[in-house]
């Protein structure tokens, strides 16, 4: 057995079913070794998308996503994907080939210091020095990626290490890291404090972030909210943590959020942040959630607590464990008048948007589309205006809502949707992007065709980089700079070129029929939804 075969063996023992990647000389021993395994290999069309696809798979299956690319440009191309996963705490193991150990540092062909370059975007990284270390390093990497605050782990393997013989392969049963012991269970004293405060609170609200989904605590959150009658809002990464149609759900917070969600945060006397970073787009002014309020901040990463807002009660631990512990307490609460007020806000604080009726209204379109999708479907939103319309209008039931929240990486939706579909082939998977983000990853239509991954794609087309155009309209009084997307391809030709069904939706009266046709069957479809080029999210 050589190092490369050991790497493959490790992946098998970790239960990896699929590797996304792009080969090159420096990773060839690995791609040779994987031929003798049942692990499926997906040839992605550019390395960044290997990480996005692995991220999509990880987010719907809860398993670690794996990608493997070559040294030099392969590795550097991967960085944006790694950074995207890091910002959203998605568990990945990213394997990169590296030049011969003895040549490291001499700037040979396709050499890049990838562990150095990716340092601030990874949870941890390894440069493997000896083939003997492979089993331990892989065991640790998978453990680190998928425990505590999850995130990407990079393993850089020089080609000579991949080719080196391994005398004995022994996969460690356990991980023993003296520097890494994440706190999962919440502290009993803090838990009691939270419940004491909740009993006193008149207007409590829970703000759920991506951490709830990462810990698989959706059910617990819902139980908690209903048992103690606490309204729930979410951050962008938290969308889907509570079903959209739940009576206690009041929308997404933030500068692009629902007015009633923001009102709930402002008017509350107790805010429970769970698995959320209190980042700028969600909580623009952290003092608003600390002043005159009890702020409870629960997170598995102690460094997030108090980073952007000083909490009254910090509580370190995993959301699922914490909710389990919190649910053991019996308290009497009556928040019905507060919930009534919020319901009133939900009814009266409506959007001021006035779309041109001669065009398809993207907000209504997304609401209808998501309503008619299967109950457990997966909706992947890209970045830009389409993302904001999606966040505000997508109805999530038992399925999932995926998007690149922290990094805001354009082009995320198509590869991530592909990864999600490969992870859960029985689910309906829909990617919604803009015409800018579509062109950033349309090369993956080939991957979809090659590996028969039936993802349904909507392109909300306005021939502009709409989000930037909207910003320039508001900030630079309509002096539009470098946002015109003329020259974009005829999408019907693109669909034909990749053997996909194509639908163009231009008039609102055709909406219902188009959506029905789009969702029909488990096959890939490309829908161009033409909207008012000047439409805005606010």
């Amino acid at each position: 057995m050589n190092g490369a075969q050991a790497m493959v063996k490790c992946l098998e023992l970790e239960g990896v079913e699929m590797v996304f990647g792009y080969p090159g000389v420096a990773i060839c021993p690995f791609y040779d070794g994987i031929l003798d395994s049942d692990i499926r290999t997906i040839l992605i069309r550019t390395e960044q998308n290997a990480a996005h696809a692995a991220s999509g798979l990880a987010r719907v299956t809860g398993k670690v996503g794996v990608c493997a690319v070559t040294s030099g440009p392969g590795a550097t191309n991967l960085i944006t994907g790694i950074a995207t996963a890091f910002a959203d705490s998605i568990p990945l193991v990213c394997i990169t080939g590296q030049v011969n150990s003895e040549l490291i540092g001499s700037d040979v062909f396709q050499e890049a210091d990838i562990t150095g370059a990716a340092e601030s975007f990874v949870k941890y990284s390894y440069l493997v020095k000896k083939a003997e270390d492979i089993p331990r390093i892989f065991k640790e990497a998978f453990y680190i990626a998928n425990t505590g605050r999850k995130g990407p782990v990079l393993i850089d393997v020089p080609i000579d290490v991949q080719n080196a013989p391994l005398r004995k392969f022994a996969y460690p049963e356990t991980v023993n890291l003296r520097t890494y012991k994440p706190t999962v269970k919440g502290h009993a004293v803090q838990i009691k404090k939270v419940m004491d405060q909740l009993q006193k609170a008149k207007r409590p609200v829970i703000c759920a972030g991506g951490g709830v989904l990462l810990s698989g605590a959706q059910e617990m959150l819902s139980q908690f909210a209903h048992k103690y009658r606490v309204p729930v809002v979410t951050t962008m990464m938290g969308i889907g943590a509570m079903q959209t149609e739940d009576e206690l759900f009041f929308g997404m917070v933030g500068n692009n959020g629902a007015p009633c969600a923001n009102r709930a945060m402002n008017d509350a006397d107790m805010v429970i942040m769970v698995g959320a970073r209190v980042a700028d787009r969600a909580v623009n002014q952290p003092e608003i959630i600390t002043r005159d309020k009890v702020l409870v901040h629960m997170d598995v990463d102690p460094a997030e607590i108090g980073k952007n807002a000083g909490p009254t009660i910090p509580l370190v631990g995993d959301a699922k464990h914490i909710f389990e512990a919190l649910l053991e307490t019996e308290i009497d609460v009556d928040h019905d008048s507060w919930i009534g007020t919020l319901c009133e806000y939900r009814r009266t604080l409506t959007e001021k948007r006035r779309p041109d009726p001669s065009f398809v209204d993207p907000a209504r379109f997304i609401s209808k589309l998501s309503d008619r999708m299967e109950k457990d479907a997966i909706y992947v939103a890209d970045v830009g205006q389409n993302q904001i319309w999606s966040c505000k209008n997508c109805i999530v039931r038992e399925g999932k809502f995926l998007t690149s929240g922290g990094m805001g990486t354009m082009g995320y939706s198509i590869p991530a949707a592909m990864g999600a579909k490969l992870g859960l082939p029985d689910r309906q998977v829909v990617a919604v992007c803009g015409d800018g983000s579509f062109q950033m990853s349309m090369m993956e239509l080939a991957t979809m065709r090659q590996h028969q991954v039936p993802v349904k794609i909507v392109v909300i087309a306005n021939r502009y980089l709409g989000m930037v155009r909207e910003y320039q309209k508001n900030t630079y009084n309509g002096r539009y700079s470098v946002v015109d997307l003329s020259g974009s391809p005829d999408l019907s030709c693109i669909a034909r070129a990749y053997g996909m069904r194509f639908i163009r939706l231009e008039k609102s009266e055709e909406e219902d029929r188009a959506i029905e046709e789009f969702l029909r069957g488990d096959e890939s479809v490309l829908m161009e939804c033409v909207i008012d080029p000047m439409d805005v999210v606010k």
Partner: protein
Amino acid sequence: MKKIYSVLVENRSGVLCKVAGLFSRRAFNIDSLVVGETDDPTVSCMTIVSSGDDHTLEQIEKQLNKKLDVIKVKTFEEYDSVSRELMLVKVKYNRNNRRDIMEITDILKAQIVDMSRTQMMIQLCDIPQRAELFLKMLQSVSIVEVARTGTVALSKCHDQE
């Protein structure tokens, strides 16, 4: 406000870079950073002196703890720790100021460790404030070069019950 962090880390290549990178990436100050092996050859001790407001100083500790190569972070207050810095100063001297230099050296308990006909090298091992004072006292003399180690520190001795 200044704070001293004594950080035990895995003695591996690249760890210094990761810790220093954390400071630059999060815009934390490094006043000084000293690394050396401990009695356990698999563990190095970094002594980092940083300054900032309370919030920043707390964040530094949390972010250091988050690094997977960091075994333990201890923070010291000045009153409960012993800190030292080693400084070497090379100065030019002549007949007129030779005595003065030797006197300052004597008063501040420094040592002359090397000498030529025109230059001498003085070594000082003391708390950082005294090193500053020493440099200030030598201002009238022409300083050729200065090398400082930065602060190393340990918490004060306590009898374990």
